[in-house]
């Protein structure tokens, strides 16, 4: 699951804030209607007045320009021939050659499918679990016990992916815990990490282990905002705890659920690249290889930069489309929007 993020800043609702310091609303109105000389003069005034504030923006803006926007522009090599060592924007236009190349690449469609399956499994299994855990925690009356469960279940979130991968290798290894249990009940040890048919199970379980506890935080926060009088009123009406959960608690946290769902759909295509990279091996490629790992091998290990960039661009565009459409749908259906 993705980290819950604050997206309020992108709100276009605050679009009025283009005015200058002291001129107030009237000046804003003028600036908006007459886009002639006035705004220019007022920019100079603004700069003279606020130059120190603007100077604070300089370094971060340079950073964003170089390390965020330059690579975005660098995607142009998906349509240009690129030679390592020459311009990072490529040498000459080749049109859609690399796009055609990957569309006709059977291997690409295989990893595309794997990506969709892992993403869908994550959405179906990993996404609802924090909600359930938060609801269970909400029913705990002993504060010390609740706090204990929270403290312990947050812990995996702080572990490096490398550590998590190391633990997965140990627990699923031939002499690891899972196989100890299997042999204890009379089964044969399975070499889980080398078996393509087990990869998805292992990947999803490690995701559950690492993210579910931490994922409860926003739901628990949302639960505290539900008006307690609703519960009292429903109790007088004879609703039991289950009915209260269904009719009060769940609707109460619905905006949080929708927001996190939208965010999760937005990161759907970017399924844990680093984790897959650590956990997979050529034997498990048939199920484990996803778009990002494929383009890593094609691009960086085999130096087909343009080809890999075309795939990466395709992936990013799908991601952007997904989050925009998920947001539009959620705004229409439940009135919750990220921005």
């Amino acid at each position: 699951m993705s980290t819950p993020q604050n997206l309020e800043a992108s709100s276009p609702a605050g679009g009025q804030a283009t005015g200058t310091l002291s001129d107030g609303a009237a000046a804003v109105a003028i600036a908006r209607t007459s886009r002639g000389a006035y705004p220019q003069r007022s920019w100079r005034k603004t700069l003279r007045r606020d130059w120190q504030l603007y100077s604070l923006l300089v370094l971060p803006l340079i950073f964003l320009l170089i390390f965020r926007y330059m690579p975005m522009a660098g995607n142009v090599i998906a349509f240009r021939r690129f030679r390592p060592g020459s311009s990072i924007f490529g040498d000459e236009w080749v049109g859609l050659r690399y796009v055609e190349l990957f569309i006709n690449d059977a291997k690409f469609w295989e990893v595309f499918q794997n990506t969709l399956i892992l993403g869908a499994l994550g959405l179906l299994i990993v996404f609802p679990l924090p909600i359930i855990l938060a609801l269970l925690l909400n029913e705990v009356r002993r504060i010390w016990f609740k706090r204990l469960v929270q403290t312990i279940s947050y812990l995996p979130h702080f572990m490096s992916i490398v550590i998590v991968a190391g633990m997965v290798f140990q627990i699923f290894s031939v002499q690891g815990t899972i196989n100890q249990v299997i042999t204890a009940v009379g089964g044969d040890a399975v070499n889980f990490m080398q078996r393509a048919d087990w990869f998805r199970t292992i990947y999803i379980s490690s995701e559950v282990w690492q993210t579910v506890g931490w994922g409860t935080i926003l739901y628990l926060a949302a639960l505290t905002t539900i008006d307690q009088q609703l519960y009292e009123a429903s109790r007088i009406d004879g609703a039991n705890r289950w009915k209260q959960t269904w009719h009060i608690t769940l609707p109460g946290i619905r905006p949080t659920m929708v927001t996190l769902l939208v965010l999760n759909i937005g990161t759907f295509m970017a399924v844990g690249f680093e984790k897959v990279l650590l956990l997979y091996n050529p034997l498990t490629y048939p199920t484990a290889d996803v778009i990002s790992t494929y383009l890593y091998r094609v691009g960086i290990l085999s130096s087909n930069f343009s080809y890999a960039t075309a795939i990466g661009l395709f992936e990013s565009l799908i991601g952007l489309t997904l989050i925009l459409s998920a947001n539009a749908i959620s705004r229409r259906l439940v009135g919750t929007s990220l921005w």
Partner: protein
Amino acid sequence: MVTDSALKDQAGAPDPTRLARRLERPTPTTVKDSRGYKVFTVINVLVLTGVMAITLYPFANIIAQSFSSEGFINAGQVNLVPRGFNVETYRTVMADNMFWINYRNTVVYTVVATTIAMVLTTTYAYAISKKNLRGRNFFIMVAVFTMFFNGGLIPNYVLINAIGFTNTIWAIVIPNAISVFNLLVMKAFFENMPDELEEAAAIDGLGTYRTLLRIVLPLSKAVIATMVLFYAVSFWNSWFQAFLYLDDARLYPVTVYLRNLIAGATTATSVAGGSSDGMTQVASNIQSVTMVLTVLPIICLYPFIQKYFVSGVMLGSVKG
């Protein structure tokens, strides 16, 4: 968003302890519970205990393995309790010079990267928190857009190579300097500071720089601590950046050292060497010890830092 009203009342001075405690408030129930609910409570406690057990088990497992002898691990007999207890593996790993070099690299990278990240994030967040800053929405959009669309792996790789960061510390500490999430958390915090403070500072003749340094930052210790922790943990845990851009083993952070152990391309072959019992078994011993030593600082700090993280995440969702 839904957390809005919950946080607004204390957003001005978010006290991590109070925020964390808010999460722990039980639902008040005064009416007598039905029998069904009592049964549920018992099951609930069992389920949550199970959750804790599953969460803790892998930690217990690597600790047990780290103290076990090779033979028992290989025979599949180590789970919760060390078998053939010994501290030899710890001695072996700690005698490896490269481990300590890489460990020190991790510390250096974390400190430098966090410092750079804090400077860039704080200055940007402070500027865009000023509601009367002209062009503010543009500056906010410039940052937020990078959250939804990024250049992707290859263009980034090409860029880092082109500017000559490969095989230097800069490839690790600069490219991830601004996390938009952290930026928005800080911005929300600065926005909620009372305007009067800075107005008073302006009347006293303080410019923006000195207001920020002398008035605003000293009042923002809580959020700064939270941000430092967010960044530090993410840099401490990161490995891919180093894996991608560093070729020289002497520059690796400890996560890459560990990754190479796990991937079998072990840098510790010399350490494990001599043993004729085969690599896998020795490596799984050594892996466990390396893992324990890598997570140790975080586990030790964890009880103290957890509440800052919780409050940070909640601050981040103040208005979302």
